[in-house]
């Protein structure tokens, strides 16, 4: 019935942090979980200020879009043959951001990685809003956006017949499936938490709203039994979906013959990059949240440490992909690829390539240091660099390739205009607006799943069935390891 695995009695091998086998020592009871997490939902002045800034950014982007519709797509800085500019870069950037959410919520769930429990809700919400943001860009890229439904591949009488052998059609299916399944996964996980909010709410309108959203959930054994199984299958479906979606996005490029794009490496390269960028964005979001919401005893340093290791691993995978790509360009024997590779790394686009390499490959190496993995300020700063580096990764993939194709007479330059930058800013405003609305209306930490890892109240002093006795040589018997106290020595922020 439970969604987490039964604890193993085998504690023979453990991490090198004494407290890491105890998930949430500073959380004593189920009631505390409700109090702490539902207590974060009260809006504050800082939240209203943040929401105002997000809406302002969105309005700037919307104004730029209106101007683009009025003037035509030429204002967006396209210079033939570079007809995919910042919009495709930002589209792939946001799809990539959306990947870590499902990685953390689904893949780490199947692998029973305990550190996901307190961060996955934020990551899932981030996924849904990031894919919603990405979905805007194919429409923003249209001269006549009111005809956007022409893009949807269904049989019609407009003489635009879907070509199912085209990667762009695969992309529509992949992105829409991903958006639907991610949203479903998020909502299904929220149902027990909405019921907890319903039962605490006193305001009649909000109570009614939560009642409707929780679908009459009652925490019964029948509900939990089927819920746990359904959640497992949704996670099992989401796992290959994560891998497939960015592979399909990479096929948009890899299926062409453009130098720099036509590579079998692209699918794993894109997937690893997407997960890496998503984890970066998770850090950007979760580190301020745990501080502002007073949730340091839920999202602990141990959880961030584990997530930082995942970040380091994906950075190494991405770095290997860059080196492989460069090696193929240098050693592959194709004059076109060699010329393109030189232009990208040492020529016209060197500045973008080196921003990418430093942010994505060099700076994350600092995470080999345990001290830095547990330093929240550094993790936050690093996450900003990762976001920047991953945006530039997509820029380096798309723009140099289009501007340096086979024929020298086609070679050109490309520079984004203020319209591109305004729409990029607007996309961050759109994403932030939804996320800010989410964090003050729905729980940012999964209440029911956190309760699963909090010891239940017992009449007797012995642990319940299946829960092993704490090992005294690894954790303190009081369950209050110094690392979890408010002034924790491992945390400098």
């Amino acid at each position, binding site marked *: *019935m*439970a969604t987490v695995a039964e604890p193993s009695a085998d504690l023979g091998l453990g991490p090198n942090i004494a407290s890491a086998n105890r998930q949430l020592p500073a959380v004593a009871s*189920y*009631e505390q979980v*409700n109090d702490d997490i539902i207590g974060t939902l009260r809006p504050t002045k800082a939240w209203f200020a943040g929401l105002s800034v997000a809406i302002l950014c969105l309005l700037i982007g919307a104004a730029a879009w209106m101007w683009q519709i009025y003037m035509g797509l030429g204002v967006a800085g396209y210079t033939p043959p570079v007809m995919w500019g910042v919009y495709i870069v930002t589209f792939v950037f946001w799809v990539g951001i959306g990947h870590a959410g499902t990685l953390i919520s689904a893949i780490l769930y199947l692998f029973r990685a305990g550190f996901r429990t307190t961060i996955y809700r934020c990551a899932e919400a981030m996924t849904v809003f990031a894919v919603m943001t990405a979905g805007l860009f194919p429409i923003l890229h249209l001269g006549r956006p009111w005809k956007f439904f022409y893009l949807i591949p269904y*049989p019609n009488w407009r003489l635009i*017949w*879907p*070509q*199912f*052998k085209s990667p762009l059609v*695969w992309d529509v*299916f*992949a992105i829409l*499936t991903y958006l*639907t*399944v991610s949203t*479903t*996964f998020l909502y*299904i996980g929220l149902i*027990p938490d909405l*019921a*907890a909010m*319903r*039962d*605490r709410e006193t305001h009649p309108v909000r109570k009614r709203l939560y009642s409707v959203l929780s*679908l*009459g*959930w*009652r*925490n*019964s*054994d*029948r*509900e*939990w*039994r*089927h*819920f*746990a*199984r*359904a959640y497992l*299958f*949704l996670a099992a*479906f989401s796992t*290959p*979906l994560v891998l*497939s979606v960015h592979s*399909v996005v990479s096929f948009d490029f890899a299926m062409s013959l453009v130098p720099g794009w036509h590579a079998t490496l692209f699918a794993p390269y894109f997937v690893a990059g997407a997960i890496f960028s998503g984890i970066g964005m998770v850090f950007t979001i979760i580190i301020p949240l745990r501080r502002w919401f007073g949730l340091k005893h839920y999202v602990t340093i141990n959880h961030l440490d584990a997530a930082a290791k995942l970040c380091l691993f994906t950075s190494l995978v991405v770095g290997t992909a860059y080196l492989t790509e460069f090696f193929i360009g240098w050693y592959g024997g194709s004059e076109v690829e060699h010329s393109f590779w030189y232009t990208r790394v040492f020529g016209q686009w060197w500045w973008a390539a080196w921003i990418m390499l430093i942010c994505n490959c060099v700076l994350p190496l600092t995470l080999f240091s345990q001290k830095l993995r547990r330093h929240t300020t550094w993790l936050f700063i690093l996450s900003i660099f990762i976001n920047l580096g991953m945006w530039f990764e997509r820029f380096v993939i798309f723009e140099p390739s289009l501007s340096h194709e086979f024929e020298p007479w086609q070679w050109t330059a490309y520079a984004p205009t203020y319209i591109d930058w305004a729409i990029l800013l607007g996309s961050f405003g759109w994403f932030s607006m939804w996320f800010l609305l989410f964090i003050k209306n729905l729980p940012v930490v999964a209440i*029911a799943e956190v*309760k*699963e890892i909090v010891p*239940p*109240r*017992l*009449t*007797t002093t012995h642990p*319940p*069935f*299946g829960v092993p006795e704490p090992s005294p040589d690894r954790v303190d018997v009081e369950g209050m390891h110094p690392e979890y106290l408010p002034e924790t020595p491992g945390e400098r922020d």
Partner: protein
Amino acid sequence: MQGIVGVFRTLDSTVEAIHALRKLRAGDMTVYSPAPRHELEHALDHGPSVVRRFTLIGGLLGASFGYWIPIWISDYWPLVVGGKAVPSWIPYTIISFELMVLIGSLATVAGLFANARFPRITMTVGYDPRFSDGDFGVWVECPPERQRDVADTMRKLGAEVRSES
């Protein structure tokens, strides 16, 4: 529907109550807990959830539909690319995979709703808001003549008991 609901403060007393009530053969039992617990699962000893069948059927239907729709469309309006076969199963596998995931996931949710019996319009009897906070609960549906035995059993294990109908 009438019966007895007991509110328990602790998990182990809830588990003991389940064992005692099953021994008593008191009637249909529903157990409430703020979070899913393996201890309750072992005590109730239910079989595996049938949601998996919905998942399997949904996944197979989605995969089949994902092959059928592009094959049908290709055949209906042939677009020959590079002299290759009009219905080409390799690229269509991507469509099939995506629809397998999509329809399989939605079928899983439908299976959850059908088997867990929600959306529920009313909360009916036998529920207490404390079950989503920190307390555990047992609802036993039984006729009035059995209610005294059930209530006594629950009270002995420290439950707060009330009769509902």
